């Protein structure tokens, strides 16, 4: 029997992978991918809670839709910033963007 906890565990693991990628990667695009994983993890939670915890209202799924939307916007803006920085610095490796101290 698959329970809510199963989904939560998967989601936690995906979140951890994403967090690891976001924190450990040097490349900006790879960091972004890590962030996308984290958002997906949260979405798994939301959709799972919607089914197990709060059926009836669709708030969890709607939340997930909003998150997907925002993920797209975030990716669009973030990648644009990466491209702009790439034009200046000729690199997408974040620790090479070091005009200012971190």
């Amino acid at each position: 029997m698959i329970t809510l906890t199963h989904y939560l565990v998967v989601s936690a693991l995906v979140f951890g992978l994403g967090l690891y990628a976001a924190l450990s990667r040097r490349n900006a695009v790879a960091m972004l991918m890590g962030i996308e994983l984290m958002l997906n993890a949260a979405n798994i939670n939301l959709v799972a809670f919607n089914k197990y915890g709060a059926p009836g209202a669709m708030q969890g799924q709607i939340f997930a839709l909003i998150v997907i939307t925002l993920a797209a916007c975030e990716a669009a803006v973030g990648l644009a910033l990466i491209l702009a920085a790439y034009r200046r610095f000729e690199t997408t490796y974040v620790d090479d963007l070091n005009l200012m101290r971190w």
Partner: protein
Amino acid sequence: MTGEAIAFYVLAAITLAAGAVVATSPNLMHSAVALIPALLGVTGLYVLLNAEFVAGIQVLIYAGGITVLILFVIMLTEGGTGLRIRQRNEQAAIAAAVAAATVALLIAVAGRTPWAHEPGALPSYTPGAIGQSFLGPNLPLFEGTSVVLLVALVGALLIARKETGE
């Protein structure tokens, strides 16, 4: 073992395996491509959770949209030349520890919390229910989203486009 359980474990395995590749592959392009099975695995989980509309959107936006954006940017920048470059920063070990601790904490909390374990009955036609909600109580979300999209578009174009004088 029911079909649902098999499907769950298979999808979870796909998601996690692909996610691991995303997080660790030294080849940026492989990471990006591995994102697709990871996202599709999550899509499968949505389907198992009776959220087929969200699943459809997940494929349409994530796999068909965001991934394309990411691939474009990789191709427009260093792309595969990154193969020769170190991909992990100095804090990778700390990052791993932090991530592992977070996961452990989250799993511990998730496991101990008395959740409602019985699945409830979702509305039979989720797109309809979502539509009703968006034009009803969630109207601010609906209209707000359009403003967010507008701003994201304006902002991203502003950042991405070349200066005329450049």
